[in-house]
């Protein structure tokens, strides 16, 4: 099967087979991470720019590590020290990068649609490293990879995504992709953070975590985005924790060897208890390792072959 995309903006325009191709390629990339010499010549001479307009530790370092292992050169464009502070627009910044013949731009931005805007303007490939409340496709793909490593396939598996669904680009991308892969997805959260519009994703929604737990193969806790909770969307952290916080006791109700995922960073004691986060069921650290492998696969698929062809 052939990869035909210039960009990776969301999972809605990827087929199940294309997602499987990413996961298969990532498996090969993962082997490289455990070698004594973690360096490939594959992307020698290719240049990648990281444009992160929002804070990020793991996603940015994960992309940077992935690109460097593949042998590409990475330019870190840090917003604080850049011309953005002088009022340069996103488009002008991007055009500057294009003039430097950058092959791939990885962008994180607080505005939904920022990556798509950039992708339309640039000849270079674009990977969405998270845009507003819209999508975070590489996080979803690394979640799928982590699940696939455990399960082999997605058919018949039940995945709960719990927490602040409204603000979560991770939840959106996960729901879209898991549905394509054939898993059953349930989005769970308090009514204020799980508005009825979420039904557009075509998956089940519920306000009651306890009733959905039996039979769940994976439970993904979302970070409660405290910075976005100024407007009183729920009464108190304590109540939120009691109803939607994951604990060992709650997870025991699944009756299965359930795996626990979290995109990080963790608010320990809020959406997930500390002992659960550090338990054997938790695959949170594996997610980080797998993130590098999945991003290597994507970068390879986007710019590893023939030069980017404008669609």
């Amino acid at each position, binding site marked *: *099967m*052939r*990869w035909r995309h210039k960009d990776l903006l969301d999972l809605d325009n990827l087929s199940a087979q294309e997602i499987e*191709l990413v996961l*298969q*390629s990532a*498996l*090969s*990339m993962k*082997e*490289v991470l455990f*070698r*004594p*010499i973690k*360096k*490939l*010549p*594959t992307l020698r001479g290719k240049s990648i720019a990281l444009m992160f307009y929002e804070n990020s530790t793991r996603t940015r370092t994960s992309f940077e590590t992935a690109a460097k292992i*593949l042998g590409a050169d990475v330019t870190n464009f840090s917003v604080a020290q850049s011309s953005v502070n002088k009022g340069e627009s996103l488009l002008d910044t991007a055009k500057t990068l294009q003039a430097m013949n950058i092959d791939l731009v990885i962008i994180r931005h607080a505005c939904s649609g920022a990556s798509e805007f950039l992708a339309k303007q640039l000849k270079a490939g674009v990977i969405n490293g998270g845009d507003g409340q819209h999508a975070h496709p590489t996080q979803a793909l690394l979640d799928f990879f982590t699940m696939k490593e455990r399960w082999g396939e997605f058919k018949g598996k039940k995945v709960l995504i719990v927490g602040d669904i409204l603000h979560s680009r991770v939840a959106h991308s996960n729901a879209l992709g898991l549905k394509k892969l054939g898993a059953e997805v349930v989005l769970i959260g308090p009514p204020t953070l799980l508005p009825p519009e979420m039904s557009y994703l075509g998956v089940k929604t519920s306000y009651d975590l306890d009733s959905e737990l039996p039979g769940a193969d994976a439970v993904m806790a979302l970070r409660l985005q405290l910075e976005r909770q100024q407007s009183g969307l729920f009464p108190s952290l304590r109540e939120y924790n009691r109803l939607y916080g994951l604990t060992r006791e709650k997870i025991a109700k699944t009756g299965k060897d359930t795996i626990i995922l979290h995109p990080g960073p963790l608010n320990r004691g809020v959406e997930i208890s500390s002992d659960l986060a550090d338990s054997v069921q938790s695959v949170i650290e594996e997610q980080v390792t797998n993130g590098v492998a999945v991003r290597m*696969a994507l970068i*390879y*698929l986007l710019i*590893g*072959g*023939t*030069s980017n062809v404008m669609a």
Partner: protein
Amino acid sequence: MTKRIPKHKIMDADGIRRAINRISHEIVEKNKGTENLVLIGIRTRGVPLAERIQARILDFENVKLPLGLLDITLYRDDLSMIDVQPVIHETKVPFSIEGKTVILVDDVLYTGRTVRAALDALIDLGRPQKIQLAVLIDRGHRELPIRADYVGKNIPTSSREIISVCLSEIDNSEEVLLLE
């Protein structure tokens, strides 16, 4: 791809079996035993060939050599030139090659570029003491200074021709064909 017409059969199943037998003996003879030897097959068709050599050597020396699989896609020098991007497969070398004598196995030796990529890939896994190359077919037309240590059969070809190695583990037949 355009359909190629088989010109003639270079090797049948018996021919392949005898060539593998001879190569297996030569490997043991040249290295004065099996000590320190490891086999690494280059994906795709080097892998079943390496497995067969492993089985032969087990037969007559009673030693099972470690066997690894190498995918060289990430080391190719023509990634930006080929039209269809190759799918990468897993490299599986579940042992250290540090200080070993590595027998690299492939089906056809042609330009030498695959072997060049394989050498780079191997050296990224560690520092073997020696690397030797075993191929079923050497068809000439080298573009790099590379030669095989063990050859099943030398076939002079024109560069318009194609050598097709079919192995029962992967293909539906067991033969080597010259196509035009």
